[in-house]
């Protein structure tokens, strides 16, 4: 996936949380955004690596990137559609 430099309109910090809390927080945050706005989710649960991309796809939004941060967590960058 290409890495774009985008500034997130909202950041959800779900580090340390396990399933299903990262998903719930992602879903809630997406609800509060307008189309075209960008959400960034930080997570440490290995399950999220599948759950978040699957959910974003089902939601009709777009996962712009998913990358391991040097701080030991994963950053999911999502554009609401």
């Amino acid at each position, binding site marked *: 996936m290409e890495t774009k430099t985008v500034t997130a309109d909202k950041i959800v910090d779900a*580090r*340390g949380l*396990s399933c299903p809390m990262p998903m719930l927080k992602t879903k809630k945050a997406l609800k509060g955004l307008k189309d075209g706005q960008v959400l960034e989710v930080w997570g*440490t649960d290995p399950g999220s690596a599948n759950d978040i991309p699957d959910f974003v796809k089902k939601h009709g939004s777009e996962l712009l990137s998913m990358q391991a941060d040097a701080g*030991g967590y994963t950053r999911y960058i999502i554009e609401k559609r």
Partner: protein
Amino acid sequence: MHSFFTNTQDELRAAYALSFDRNWPGWLGGILIAVIALMIFIWNVPWGVAGGYQNWGDWAYYWMGAAEARPEMPWINTLSVSNLGIFFGALASALLSRQFAFRRAPRIEYAKGLVGGCLMGAGAALAAGCNVGGFYTAVGIFSIGGYAMMIGLGVGAFIGLHYLLWEMEHLAHLSGGGKTENKPSKRDWSQIQPVMGVFLLGGGIAAFYFYSAFDLTKIGGLLFFGLLIGVVMHRSRFCFVRAFREPFMTGDADMVRAVAVSLIVFGFGAAVIKWNWIQPPEMGVFHPWIGSLAGGLLFGIGMLLAGGCASSTLWRAAEGHSKLMIAMVAFALSNPATHMLIAATGLKPYLGAKMFMPAILTWHVALPLFVAILLLWVLVAGWNEKTEKLIIF
């Protein structure tokens, strides 16, 4: 350049990447679990998980002096041994996938692990089984209590999800992640983990031969089957909680399909085993229907709070989630305590009768009915996936 050696090396690399780089699809996990559960059934008795927690908890009460009788040794008790197998199989799998890490969580998550574990232990005692013994195995071996627990689990998941949503609105400040960030370790463990995983799996297989040498082949076999289940569950992230929660949360029906496919394979196998008297037909049928309904409800709420059921608590704890380790201990302590309470209060006669579906309806009706109920579950979940009618959030 294709010597036998280099070719084998390539094959092994490809097999490793296929098995441990990407997650397995849920339905594959479901089918494999059904096959292993059938092997357990033929090898010994139908598979259960709660009894293993009970054995661990019994030891805690024995040490505290609260119980007189000395429990079976955890390495002899059949259900404890298969649980240990699941735990170590999942740990080996997490290591092989380079996914093991000790994961700290915010305090409120620990509280939920504690309460959730207690509710699950109590629910499993009332239902005479957890999501595995009381629901999965029970439905698959045609015990009607299994369906009662299924309803209880569904309602419990619905209530539990409402709590999680309430918490997110009102207690959001308690579950911020920042402070509990998992620091990356200074040493790079990612290269060592798979080697440790291989040693752990090898050790598990060696343990089978060790059991066998002491004339305990049956117990060694259960350890081996447990290891397999642990690997399969971890790699496919097989999770009963998802099957009951997602229809209300995201609408995703994949885990419902995976559990239903698994149950159909397991149920057909169990029918062959029972109808043909390879094992006695009523073996394992002891689920009281009222207890299963009420226990399922408690268990359903508990598994939502804990974020894991009896089986996925084991594999998630093995992956390093400290919250699930707490849930595991709470489950082990509350399960025997609830059993003692049921015995002390004389509640047992009020929990309802056990019922064996083919004894009431004959096999000819019980089998298609079993398939029809599972298909209906899948169809409703699939319809909800499109229409989102059941989603509460």
